[in-house]
């Protein structure tokens, strides 16, 4: 293996071991933030030493040993400080005086990684902090990599991570599995954060990709990990399926210059068949398990699209039925908007437009560009090009996405040219 290849495989190994070691250290020490610092130091030491000296026989034990050493070093200086101040905490020391040797087997509790995920996605954290901490602690990415992925300075990302750790420390969240009552809510928070990470990667396909970590792949990797830990949870299955079925269309979704290609114009031969097969198998496994959740339904919708030979041949009745189910368990107006699109595909644009009027009257999508964009499409299909143009332009004015704005403006320009308006 080349030196570069060796370094790559060590990086890979470290990223895989990082959450396991951190989980074990945090479980033993109790202070998550201190444990995280110590494990980071151990990972840096490994990244420096292993390429030259070779990977130790028990790499996990090595990391655990070094991290605990670092923690005891910190503790020792803390003890010295307390001694100077006249207070001695011997019981603390007794607990820490023993550090297992580097080749000792470390008890790996698979739940540790799960506890880590619960901690990183804790509702006490802001969304941005939870995302950053998850990528750093469970994903094993460096702060610089995460910063580049979000186009912010490294110092800003470092600050977010350290604030997140501070929040965990001050809010006294213990390192442990949430109670049974809490668990469902906390798992929902984890799934939400993983989905956000996926979308962030999926939506930022423009830009200097080569230097960026692929956040979608990272989210898929973390969700696979979660699925290994909770193999029987249907919503975890659903989320993983949704990610795979969405990611399968990635290559077809944008043109060579990052321009947006809508579903009806995508070259379906460019969809990734193996991802589709895997996603469909997962969603088929999840649905019969009873508790149907939102991610499973979204995955089922994505599966119908992915399995259709063409846009025209899509089973819109099934998609409409799935969105109707989804609407019952979600209060998101975006779901209602998608339901209106499906209704328009089944019953014609007039029915879709009626539903949009009802949504508009509710006011929950006021000022949202997607409402205008969908209305423009349906008006164009209904032959009302004058009003379609108006809504295309309003949507273009309101979106914060450059490729989407360009797509809407181009669409409006073509319609205007075709109709002489």
């Amino acid at each position, binding site marked *: 293996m080349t030196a570069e290849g060796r370094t790559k495989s060590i990086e890979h190994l470290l990223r895989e071991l990082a959450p396991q070691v951190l989980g074990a250290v945090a479980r033993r020490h109790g202070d998550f933030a201190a444990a995280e610092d110590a494990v980071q130091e151990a990972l840096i030491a490994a990244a420096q030493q292993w390429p030259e000296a070779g990977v130790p026989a028990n790499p996990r034990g090595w990391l655990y040993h070094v991290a605990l050493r670092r923690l005891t070093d910190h503790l020792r200086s803390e003890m010295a400080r307390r001694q100077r101040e006249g207070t001695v905490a011997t019981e603390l020391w007794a607990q820490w005086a023993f550090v297992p040797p580097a080749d000792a087997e470390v008890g790996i509790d698979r739940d540790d990684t799960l506890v880590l995920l619960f901690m990183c996605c804790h509702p006490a954290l802001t969304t941005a902090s939870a995302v950053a901490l998850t990528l750093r602690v469970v994903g094993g990415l460096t702060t610089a990599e995460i910063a580049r992925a979000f186009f*912010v300075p490294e110092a800003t990302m470092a600050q977010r991570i350290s604030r997140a750790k501070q929040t965990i420390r001050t809010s006294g969240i213990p390192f442990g599995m949430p109670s049974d009552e809490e668990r469902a809510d906390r798992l929902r928070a984890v799934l939400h954060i993983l989905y956000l990470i996926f979308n962030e990667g999926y939506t930022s*396909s423009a*830009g200097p990709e080569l230097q960026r970590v692929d956040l979608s792949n990272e989210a898929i990797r973390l969700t696979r990990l979660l699925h290994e830990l909770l193999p029987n949870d249907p919503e975890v299955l659903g989320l993983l399926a949704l990610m795979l079925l969405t990611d399968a269309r990635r290559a077809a*979704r944008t043109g060579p210059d*990052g321009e947006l290609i809508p579903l009806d114009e995508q070259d379906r031969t460019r969809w990734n068949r193996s991802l589709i097969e895997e996603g469909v198998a997962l969603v088929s496994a999840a649905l019969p398990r009873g508790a149907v959740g939102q991610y499973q339904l979204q995955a089922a919708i994505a599966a119908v699209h992915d399995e259709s030979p063409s846009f025209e041949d899509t089973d819109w009745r099934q998609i409409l039925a799935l969105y109707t189910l989804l609407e019952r368990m979600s209060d998101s107006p975006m779901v209602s908007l998608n339901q209106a699109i499906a209704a328009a595909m089944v019953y014609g644009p007039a029915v879709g437009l009626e539903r949009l009027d009802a949504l508009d009257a509710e006011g929950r999508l006021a000022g949202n560009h997607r409402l205008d964009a969908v209305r423009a499409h349906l008006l164009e299909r209904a032959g009302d090009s004058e009003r379609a143009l108006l809504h295309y332009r309003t949507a273009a004015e309101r*979106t914060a996405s*450059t490729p989407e704005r360009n797509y809407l403006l181009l669409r409006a320009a073509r319609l205007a040219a075709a109709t002489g308006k």
Partner: protein
Amino acid sequence: MKYMLMMHTPRGTGEWEIFSWAPEDFQAHVEHLNRLNQEITEAGEWVEVQALTPPAQAKLVRAGANGEPITDGPFPEAKEFLAGYWIVDVETPDRAYEIAAKASAAPGPGGAPLNMAIEVRQVMGGAPAEA
């Protein structure tokens, strides 16, 4: 979501008005903005902050027939100029407005808040999420 906050300031008598303030007023103004920058830094919201040179050096540039730069300016008649900007990465639009209001309230002569207008614009991003 990222926002650009632009501080447009009155030009006054030829340069930034700030150039003719009493030293303690100038100091209080700078300290206010430093504190704000500190707050943005600690919150993990900082993307970029830049101050711009005074309008006396501002040029407008257009391409000539062969693409060569043709410069024009400065413009003594302009009443307001862009003095500087922040780019912040925040969780909500309201947080961007809150930061802008703090910038707006920077003290002027005699320590009274200037309440100058800060233009807040969202920075456009990549493709939208597939709903």
